[in-house]
């Protein structure tokens, strides 16, 4: 399903938009962004697993295992992130084919960043899921978050375009992990020329911070919230 959606997005929106946008190579730009968007929504999925676990009473089991809460949460977010990666892997390969990566080293750095991004999104999803404790509300919130975080990023259009639309949006977009991931992916695949990414270190640090925050925060929240029912 996701693959069909992805391909149709590329085929329809990508091609149409690339005519409208007055940016060179917008099609490649868009394909890279779409990969990151898809990775984002796949990594979010782990949050729904949490509800499934609550329903099946697996929490108590997980909490009783001879591992620390940190290991548990890290294990979950890395597991969720990896799963998303495996899921989206073929699509990333496809976009690489479309884009044609040039420098292997920067590509590896970008891939590493995408990994961290994926783990971070999983960690975020777990954290939000255990805070909200209601799968319905989680579902809605994730929809809203998806719309905001993806729209207010450079996934679909360069920062300059967002900035031009509204400086506030631009500000938000430049502090967005999706922006970091998309920019790094483009940088890694050698199409950074069109986004004027001067220093890949900043988005890389941004992604590391994003990942670290939700892992750390996730552990605390998980430990506090997971006990005592109230799951819907």
């Amino acid at each position, binding site marked *: 399903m996701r693959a069909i959606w992805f391909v149709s997005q590329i085929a329809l929106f990508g091609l149409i938009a690339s005519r409208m946008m007055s940016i060179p190579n917008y099609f490649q730009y868009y394909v890279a962004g779409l990969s990151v968007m898809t990775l984002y929504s796949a990594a979010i999925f782990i949050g729904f697993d949490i509800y499934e676990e609550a329903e099946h009473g697996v929490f*108590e089991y997980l*909490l009783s*295992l001879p591992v620390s809460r940190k290991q548990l949460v890290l294990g979950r977010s890395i597991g969720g992130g990896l799963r998303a990666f495996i899921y989206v892997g073929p699509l990333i390969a496809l976009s690489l084919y479309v884009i044609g990566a040039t420098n292997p080293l920067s590509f590896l750095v970008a891939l590493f960043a995408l990994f961290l991004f994926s783990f971070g999104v999983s960690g975020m999803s777990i954290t939000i899921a255990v805070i909200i404790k209601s799968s319905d509300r989680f579902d809605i919130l994730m929809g809203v978050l998806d719309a905001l975080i993806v729209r207010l990023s450079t996934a679909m259009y360069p920062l300059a375009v967002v900035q031009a639309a509204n400086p506030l949006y631009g500000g938000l977009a430049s502090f967005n992990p999706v922006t970091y991931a998309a920019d790094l992916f483009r940088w890694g695949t050698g199409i950074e020329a069109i986004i004027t990414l001067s220093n890949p270190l900043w988005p890389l640090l941004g992604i590391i911070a994003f990942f670290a925050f939700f892992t750390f925060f996730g552990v605390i929240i998980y430990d506090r919230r997971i006990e005592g029912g109230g799951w819907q």
Partner: protein
Amino acid sequence: MPPIIQIQNLTKKFGNLAAVDHLDLEIEEGEIFGLLGPNGAGKTTAILMLATVIKPTEGTALVGGFDIRKSPDKVRGLLGIAFQEPKMLWVATPWDVVNWHAKVCGLSTEERKRRVKQVLETVDMWEPRHKNVHALSGGMRKRVEMAKVLIQRPKIAIVDEPTTQIDVVGKHKIWNMLLELRDEGSTIILATNELYEADRLSDRVGIMHRGKLLVCDTPKTLKDSILGGDIIDIQLEKDASPTIVEELKSFKEVVDIMQVKPTNLRLYLNRVEEVVPQIMNLLMKKNVPVNSIRMSEPSLDDVFAHYTGLTIEEAQKDEG
């Protein structure tokens, strides 16, 4: 040696209900400790606190010297638990469940391969090992749950009603496994509401009721502590007359008589070997025909009744 588990003032409240109410208890290394109590007594809640799954409202416990509040990671490293309601990962087969558990507990790939088979065979779950857990019966799931503890061989094993839903043959197997586990050096906490199970397996028994510990001792001491220590049930052909009951009461070894039915008398007494012939003589002399006479030892049910004034069945209904 200090007790391996020291529970101090442990309390868990759910709203106004104190599910576990200022519990103090010590469990010795290498024993099977039977935690006996009717439904809702607070056994599972106490266990979940020990396993650091839920947090106490008040009080704490030291497990292997580690405080469950301060060093929960250390505590979990010592524990293995078979839950009352089997906790399965939702997409898995018995083999996956046990293998995954062994992996998390740090067994090497080599060892796992061998032991998963061995353990699943022990609980008679080798054949259906590739079935989806949803397709398993309740008893089968309990067996898989037990297999997790068996493969882990934890220093402290907690088993919460391990044999409910399991057939008689299976029960005996699991009891033997628990005894073996203890003999290999594990300390075992056995939560149960089956008196026979607690009596048969436990080195010591603690009786819980409404979140509190009523008594705690060896099953023998507990049983000896109540009334005379021996019980005989006499079934008469006709209703027992008050005079006969009075005459039976006049034996100094007879502590108490309960008229269970008009024709059935239950005598609590001491030195049963000496008294029974005298009782038989008396009944013959008075021309009271006896249908049957049966000697029985006091059970933990009698102990429970002694301390709560309720049979365990009544207590269960009470909670329900």
